């Protein structure tokens, strides 16, 4: 079976590639950025650039891609258009990876099902763009599209829900105000198995995808702390109520303008001249995380670790109260239609993630 994978070099895409290879499928990896080839380069497979993509010779198309940043001169909108056009033009059964973020804002105790009418906040660009694409695919290719909406996905090479935690705990103690929110984390390998099953026995539809447990974030933080073998986890207590943000419309306007490549080019030399602290404040004011943190894994003697309490990826979430809120979804449809999917409990991943942590963040030779 020939399976085209868009976003094959990303976290979930690469997990699916490995699962597909394990099952004897023939993956065709479609790439948008040469840098994303770093994981794929280890495997023998066909690579195709996403420009002028022809997918007429594959059996199934799996989409794990989503544009997060401006690449080259291509805006997010332009990249999204290319992605949508490629998916619609393929004419093949399509497995499309969406997100539970489309159900934002979540309400404590409520578990949205797949049929809920979604209306994420206008300021949540990620959820908005995901939902737009979901709807377009359902309307124009619904009979051949399976949409999966996973919850928190963790596992090897996961930048947000794995590497950011490991990096933070390897650098020292981590503290957040309140980590009482509950989630249903799912291991990336389980999601990849589900996607591979769906390739082999395709049926269109829409499914929430989550792990077997409802866990509080504080349990996850402690788990990552133990896996990383570094700092400890602290909760500093609930945050005081936040003031409504001033000038929110102006901030939104600045965000939109700064996504336009010509303005980005104009602004870059000016922003680069700002002191680091001012630049960080500017980015935070626009709701942009700071640049990905390069964690000094083995600080040289006499050098203090230059790592804040949380890496920027997590700091923004902590400051917004993300870890204090429940983000639970209804998984009954998934469990009914995929009874053989037995997702892995968090605790059973400890040894594997410990090995991964050693591989990814230490000088130890892989064994």
């Amino acid at each position, binding site marked *: 079976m020939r399976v085209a994978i868009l976003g094959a070099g990303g976290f979930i895409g690469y997990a699916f590639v490995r699962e597909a290879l394990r099952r004897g499928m023939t993956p065709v990896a479609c790439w948008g950025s040469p840098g994303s080839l770093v994981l794929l380069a*280890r495997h023998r497979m066909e690579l195709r650039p996403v420009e002028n993509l022809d997918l007429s010779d594959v059996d199934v198309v799996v989409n794990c891609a989503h544009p997060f940043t401006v690449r080259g*001169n291509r805006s997010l909108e332009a990249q999204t258009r290319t992605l949508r056009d490629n998916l619609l033009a393929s004419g093949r059964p399509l497995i499309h990876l969406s997100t539970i973020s489309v159900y934002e804002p979540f309400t404590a105790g409520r578990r949205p099902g797949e049929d809920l009418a979604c209306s994420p906040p206008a300021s949540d660009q990620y959820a908005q763009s995901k939902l737009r694409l979901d709807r377009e695919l359902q309307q124009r290719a619904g009979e051949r599209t399976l949409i999966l909406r996973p919850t928190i996905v963790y596992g090897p090479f996961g930048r947000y829900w794995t590497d950011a935690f490991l990096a933070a705990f390897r650098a020292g103690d981590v503290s957040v105000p309140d980590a009482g929110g509950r989630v249903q984390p799912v291991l990336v390998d389980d999601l990849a198995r589900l996607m591979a099953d769906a390739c082999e026995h395709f049926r269109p539809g829409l499914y929430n995808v989550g792990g077997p447990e409802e866990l509080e974030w504080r349990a996850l933080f402690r788990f990552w702390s133990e896996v990383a073998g570094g700092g400890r986890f602290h909760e500093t207590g609930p945050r005081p109520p936040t003031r409504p943000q001033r000038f929110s419309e102006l901030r939104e306007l600045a965000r939109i303008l700064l996504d336009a490549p010509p303005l980005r080019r104009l602004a870059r030399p000016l922003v680069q001249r700002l002191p680091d602290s001012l630049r960080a404040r500017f980015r935070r004011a626009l709701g942009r995380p700071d640049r990905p943190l390069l964690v000094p894994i083995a600080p040289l003697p006499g050098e203090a670790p230059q790592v804040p309490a949380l890496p920027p990826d997590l700091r923004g979430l902590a400051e917004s109260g993300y870890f204090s809120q429940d983000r639970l979804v209804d998984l009954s449809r998934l469990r009914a239609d995929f009874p053989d999917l037995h997702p892995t409990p968090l605790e059973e991943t400890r040894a594997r993630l410990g090995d*991964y942590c050693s591989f*990814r963040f230490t000088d130890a030779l892989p064994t």
Partner: protein
Amino acid sequence: MRSVLPSMPEPQPTEASAPHPTPETPTFPRVLLAGGGAIALEAHLPQLRGLPGNQRVVLYELSASRRAAIRTRYRDDVALELPEQLPEGPFDLAVLATPPGCHLQEVLRWRPSCPRFVLEKPMARTLEEACAIASNLEGALMAVHMPRAELAAFDVLKDLYTQGRYGALQAVQIHDGRVFDWPSVSAALFSKEMSGGGVMMDLAPHILERLLHLFTGLEVEQCLVDGDRGAVEANAVLQLRGDDRIPVTVTMSRNRHLSGTAVLTFAEAEARVGLMAPTVHLAPRQGPGMTLCPDEDAGSVPFRTLVARFYQRRVVEGRSRPGRALEVMRLLDEAYRVARPLQGGF
């Protein structure tokens, strides 16, 4: 093994060998920059403008879309030429910032019209190609861009080693690598046909150059790479022996956050240096540790500073060390010849 390398004395360009006169302190009014990738624009181009007497940089890029992107970025720059057709010489310097697979053909193309060449590392895909480049550049200046050589920390390590102040050197361990984030504009770095290999071709030239600074002789003993299924490797482990007795292990990666350090274990001390850092941290078995700072900059040295030093020392002053670049290629060739699959990892 070393005898196969052509002898590469420091070139002394003469009226006869150079296309046009080369004064005592050279000037570079017209410079060719071949290749419009990230390394060309971010590292080389700013330095070329600062070369003595530079008036014009001719950027030669084959890809029309890349040319368009560069033209947009530098549209107000009157000193940058971006021709659609193959430009004509003479040039005072040619910088080959193309994939290694193109270096030989670019050397053949530009040698008649240029007396000085800077090649982006690695020098070529194979030793054979490197030797062909060297022989074609006989009488010309040839510098391979390995800017870590401009840090002085390894001078201290060499001093510690040769003087034996902390006893005999027992082992060297180097870990170099990070999750790949270079803003590549093409897939050449991941194509064995274009780059000659993977992470080892990318990172090892820097490391081997530094080890050749430390040791008089260096030989490959074992090489493990994980791109054994016909693709390009993301991880590599290279085991060498320095001066016939000192074991050296070099670990390189494109998908791991390695520490970026060299650790030298002496009988009575451990010396540790960041591969991009100017200082050496010395921890004697007895007595307090100390930080040695041989570099003119005590803080971290920005990449662009190293590139500027490279151009000043290797190009303007002519201390280009082509023999060392060839020796690096010999070691890389030998490493790929004995390479075996690296097991484990993710």
